[in-house]
């Protein structure tokens, strides 16, 4: 990892002292505001992308944004800059916007609070440098070739920094390592996929995962069509995790709760999933991408979405928390080209105790689904999504994985599926939420009794 000074060695690109100085200078530049907060996000990432016979995109990217929010006479505005050499310019721009008319509707800034201390920094990511990633890419390209297959993937690492300062007394800085791997191996008409990410590189278990993915792809070489109909399925951890991507859309956000729509507003405490299903947004978990506070400086806490199948609570930021009259859960987020919105950032489904092979052994005739693709909400109120299965999908016959099957479209209710879960796997896998800026999802495999492939009757 190259830091700003250009020296090798894994250190944050900006560093705590410089980051905190920048947000404090921004805050000072906002003098005259009734309240103000400033945050600085920095992500220095390296990404080794490969396809077929080459590394086609070797990238080393630093992104940075310092944003100031001010409240002046009941009006608020934000301004941001990538130039932390001049943080006062963002403060002045925010003040000008607020004084020039600003946006009505005011909520305060975060107050000082104790921050949790999840394990954020893993020194093993230092060894996961460009040379190591290239060597692993070359290895899996060769291994796939020997199996008459082709490999496509991305191996990466990053350091994420967040510094926050506010007139409520908040001063916070944290830096976190990140390691990721994703691999698609194609053999004939078949394929297999693997991905994982987390704070540690060693935890990826890359070499073993790559070999397994090559073997699975070779086994999936000649898939057969899966007939339309209802099948018992074992959803692999990546397929199961995909179902969790939609919890924000299903109403587990403060905005939905305030509007009176979605699961938390309309079915609080109701049993919508099997009792073996527990889902939380847990920024303090030992898996996924834990982080101690959000961009408003609010300490993150675990937010229970489904506890033993029952609907729990919603994530909030300062704005939605103020509207609901509750404290923020620490989930402020500002996405590109969208209004700020509290979103889940580290979704985790609790693992069960059933080894994955026993999940399969409990299915007389059904389908193992490795992964879903391009899932989209069709009817958020009914938690209906559509998508296709893909990659390493196989028939299960007499409790054993047998022939590969081709991908197939489905349209199903997520709560409906979760209510038909009768066993939960004991092994977790993590995937990013669209991209790592939006967070991560971690889930075990699930056995579901009744999954409809093909169009609805």
């Amino acid at each position, binding site marked *: 990892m190259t830091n*700003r000074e250009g020296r090798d060695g894994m250190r944050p690109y900006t560093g705590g002292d410089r980051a905190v100085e920048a947000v404090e200078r921004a805050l000072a530049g906002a003098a005259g505001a009734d309240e103000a907060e400033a945050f600085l996000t920095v992500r220095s990432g390296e990404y080794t992308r490969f396809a077929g016979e080459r590394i086609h*995109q070797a990238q080393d990217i630093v992104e940075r944004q310092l944003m100031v929010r001010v409240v002046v006479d009941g009006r608020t505005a934000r301004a941001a800059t990538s130039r932390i050499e001049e943080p006062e310019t963002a403060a002045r721009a925010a003040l000008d916007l607020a004084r020039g008319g600003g*946006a009505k509707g005011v909520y305060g800034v975060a107050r000082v609070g104790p921050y949790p201390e999840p394990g954020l920094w893993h020194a093993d990511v230092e060894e996961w440098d460009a040379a190591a990633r290239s060597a692993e890419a070359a290895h899996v390209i060769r291994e796939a070739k020997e199996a008459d297959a082709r490999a496509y993937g991305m191996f990466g690492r990053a350091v994420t920094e967040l510094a926050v300062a506010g007139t409520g007394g908040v001063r916070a800085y944290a830096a976190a390592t990140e390691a990721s791997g994703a691999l698609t191996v194609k053999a004939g008409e078949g394929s297999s996929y693997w991905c994982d990410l987390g704070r540690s590189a060693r935890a990826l278990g890359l070499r073993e995962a790559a070999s397994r993915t090559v073997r699975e792809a070779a086994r999936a070489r000649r898939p057969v069509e899966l007939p339309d109909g209802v099948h018992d399925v074992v959803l692999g951890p990546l397929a199961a995790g995909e179902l969790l991507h939609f919890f924000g859309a299903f109403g587990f956000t403060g905005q939905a709760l305030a*509007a009176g729509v979605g699961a938390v507003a309309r079915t609080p405490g109701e049993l919508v999933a099997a009792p073996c299903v527990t889902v939380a947004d847990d920024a303090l978990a030992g898996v996924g991408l834990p982080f101690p506070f959000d961009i408003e400086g609010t300490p993150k806490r675990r937010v229970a979405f489904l506890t033993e199948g029952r609907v729990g609570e919603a994530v909030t930021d300062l704005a939605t928390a103020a509207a609901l009259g509750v404290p923020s859960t620490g989930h402020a987020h500002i996405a590109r080209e969208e209004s700020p919105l509290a979103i889940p950032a580290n979704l985790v489904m609790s693992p069960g105790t059933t080894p994955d092979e026993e999940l399969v052994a409990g299915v007389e005739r059904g389908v193992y689904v490795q992964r879903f693709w391009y899932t989209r909400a*069709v009817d958020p109120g009914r938690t209906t999504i559509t998508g296709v299965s893909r990659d390493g999908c196989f028939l299960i016959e007499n409790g054993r994985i047998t022939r590969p099957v081709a991908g197939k479209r489905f349209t199903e209710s997520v709560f409906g599926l979760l209510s038909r879960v009768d066993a939960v796997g004991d092994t977790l896998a993590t995937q990013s939420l669209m991209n790592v800026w939006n967070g991560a999802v971690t889930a075990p495999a699930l056995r579901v009794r009744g999954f409809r492939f093909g*169009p609805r009757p």
Partner: protein
Amino acid sequence: MTAHTWGSAHDDAAARALCEVALGAASGPGVEYADVRLVECEETRLYGRHGGARDERSELNLGVGVRALREGVWGFAAAPLGDEADVRAVAGRAVAAARAAAFEGTERVTLPPRPPSSGRYATDVTTDPFTFSGRYGLLDQALAAAGAPEKVVSAEVGLNAKRQHRHFADSEGSRQHQHLVESGAMVMVFAADEHDVQRRSYPNSFHGNTAAAGWEYVESLRLVEQAARVGEEAVALLTAPVAPSGTADLVIGPAQMALQIHESCGHALELDRILGDESNFAGASFITPDALGTLRYGSPAVNVTADPTVPGTRGSFGWDDEGTPAGRRELIREGVVVDFLSGRDSAARLGLTPIGAARADGWAYTPVCFATNVFLEPGSGSLDELLDRLGDGYYVDDNRSWSIDERRWNFQFGTEVAYEVRRGRRGRLLRNLSYGGVTPRFWGSVEAVAGPEEFRAFGMPCGKGEPKQWGFLGHGASPTLVRGVRIGVA
């Protein structure tokens, strides 16, 4: 100051000097080619929710991205721009990335030489969106209109503008400065009763619409009037009959056609996907490299072009992000594939001329194949004439959900609205219409496309690449008549 003379990167001489520093630092043994993009971007966004807090933000970023081709292997690096030292560091890291990416037996790419292309390009702007002062009043009026109907539980209005200095220089002598200005707006309304939640949006359902234009574009939208309309329609949908299942003939409106083109045409024709570069993330394509001139993609009514020289959308530009001049190219002629969306790397691998579709999100991402302005060319006649030709069926528009497989073969879409059409007359409003199909069969079932007077183009964001970057592009169409579509699939 004009709409084009703001910021620190509007000075060509200063920006060019930094680009020369980058090119100098990205040279050395084995480096066959290098390019640099220096981009300064400012964006302003004002959002409001009916009965809730407003949020306004202004975002400025300035950075540099350098690409180096060393012994046939690419490296890319990018960082925010502070001073000249940052530029040198980024260039050095790009070369280092290329060096580290070379391994024994790697496939190497050779770029055919290209003559330099230099100059300036600027978006036509009548009213500078960054000096327009009436946005608060417009937002409040639109919110009041959208949120007025009973049963509207959430109404959001957004106004946005962006301006960018994009400087490009390469080791072959090209020196370019583009100044792009965008303005846009969105309205999104949710209505709910005890049984259902319905959404309506304007002018498009995915982040509204943003045009390459000044504030005059937002003024042309008649936002308050349209906000009232979609608010009322969201409520009306709550009690509208559910659209049926079966097989039906459809006239698909321009907003939905824009997404249809994007998902089942634009992406499928991206040459990097066809060659496998995106297999691990965005996906591949059912099209094979030998499809040119042979693959029947649709009916003779289907003519698809890529033309960034058409002004006014997010796919309009003078050069793509690796310096290829913009030009009009046919992609599908009378239903047959005749070209791909390509950049220099992908085109070189097939021995083709690049189409100029290598695009990058700001300075921080490496260029990949994205659509530019990919349009379904209009046919003839009005919407009413097309509905007459339809006879019995449905008129559908404005996307509600979308999904397509990774080869862009099997898709399923839902629309916010559907209207029953009987004997060419638009009738009842229906809710929850979905349709699905297989890409070449769908396009093969296109019977007619309405004329240029019905054509609408939309600016759309799109995600691709690892790390995921956004491409900003344009798609457009006139209402399109498609026969025998499977509906009610969701």
